[in-house]
């Protein structure tokens, strides 16, 4: 089966906010919430490609870039998972159904899930990094027959910090999916793995010359995983990473999110590891 190109909206007015109403709020962990939103201006749904982000504006508080965490084939619901770490994200996590916020976007590059058709897929996420790869997981699972082996490796701080726990159970119950989970610190009830994600790659079967890797999480984690995949014989050109910087305008004007010669908002957030490998290890960049 050939996977059709993903449709996305062209953002004709990149600085224009659209009103979105919060329709549901789910607490994922002690500091992370998932919001469902629907368009409130009577216009078209916000279609996006996996890996893209929007700018979320809480009126009177401020604006932050947040990756889209929902299903690209269900654009009628815009899903964002947000960790409360600052003034704006705290305000977002305190929103309740019925509230209206502003949304700009979608912006940025996307995971190469269409280009990876026919290949083995390796998805590695750390912490809140599972949210930006979730649309890619939805896409791959909806077109499961179009891919080879599919593996998901997820690392978290503690068992209670794991996102989307019900979905993880569903994914683990599938026979066509290899799901490996680890935490930095277990608790008395945790019977899963404890430690960093890298050793879990030993449990994955994939054709290194015919695979695509999707990595999202702390940059140190992504660097280590990319190196380990290269050791397994995988060309690093087939490894994609999602970068995070201080995105402000979202459209490549302000330069806040510059990393070397690239702007994360415009050239990223998803980039080929090859293109940024030399910059990821650079201090203070």
């Amino acid at each position, binding site marked *: 089966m050939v996977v059709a190109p993903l449709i996305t909206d062209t953002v004709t007015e990149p600085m224009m906010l659209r009103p979105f109403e919060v329709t549901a709020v789910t607490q994922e962990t002690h500091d992370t919430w998932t919001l469902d939103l629907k368009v409130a201006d009577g216009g078209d749904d916000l279609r996006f490609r996996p890996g893209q982000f929007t700018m979320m504006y809480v009126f009177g508080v401020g604006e932050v870039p947040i990756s889209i965490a929902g299903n690209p084939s269900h654009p009628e619901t815009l899903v964002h998972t947000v*960790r409360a770490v600052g003034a704006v994200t705290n305000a977002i996590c305190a929103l309740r159904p019925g509230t209206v916020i502003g949304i700009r976007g979608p912006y940025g590059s996307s995971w190469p899930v269409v280009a990876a058709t026919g290949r083995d897929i390796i998805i590695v996420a*750390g*912490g*809140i*990094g599972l949210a930006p790869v979730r649309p890619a997981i939805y896409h791959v699972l909806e077109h499961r027959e179009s891919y080879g082996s599919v593996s998901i490796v997820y*690392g*978290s*701080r503690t068992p209670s*910090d794991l996102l989307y726990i019900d979905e993880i159970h569903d994914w683990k119950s599938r026979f066509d999916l290899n799901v490996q989970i*680890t935490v*930095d610190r*277990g608790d*008395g009830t*945790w*019977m*899963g*793995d*404890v*430690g*960093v994600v*890298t*050793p*879990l790659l*030993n*449990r994955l079967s994939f054709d290194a010359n015919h695979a695509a890797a999707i990595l999202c*999480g*702390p940059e*140190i*984690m992504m660097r*280590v995983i990319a190196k380990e995949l290269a*050791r397994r014989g995988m060309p690093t050109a087939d490894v994609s990473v999602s970068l*995070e910087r201080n995105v402000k305008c979202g459209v490549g004007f302000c330069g806040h999110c510059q990393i070397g010669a690239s702007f994360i908002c415009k050239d990223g957030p998803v980039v080929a590891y090859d293109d940024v490998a030399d910059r990821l290890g650079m201090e203070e960049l």
Partner: protein
Amino acid sequence: MNLDAWRERSPMFEEMSDEHFAFLASLAEEREVPGGATLFRVNTPADRFYLVLEGTVALKIAGPSKPPMTIQTVGEGALLGLSWHLPPYRWQWTAETREPCRFAEFDANEVLAACETDSDFDNAMLRIIAREAGRRLHNVRIQLLDLYGRE
């Protein structure tokens, strides 16, 4: 015991010569262990080590008045046990299988005797242990950074 397929998946022994690895593999005995079994206990003599072929093992330690806590799990592709080659030759942790496991088990005295008579083999084993200890130290440092909590 033929461990060639295991070696291809694990980076552990990639620097060891084929000759030395074949010799080491000849000393291995395959062992299957059910889930929930204790492989070794902390502070007991470290007289063996394992290569994990299948399954997961939890390394545990108990604090005062607290139940044992898992500080790390090791799975397929791992070398389980370094204490057999280093004083005081006692286990630093308790190892418990999380699920049915399959191991290549080595008698430490047998391997140490081979190290005594073949300095090249001894050197190769020490390099592997040093590399594995370094890898574990690196991983612990990464864990101490608490990366997932500070993104």
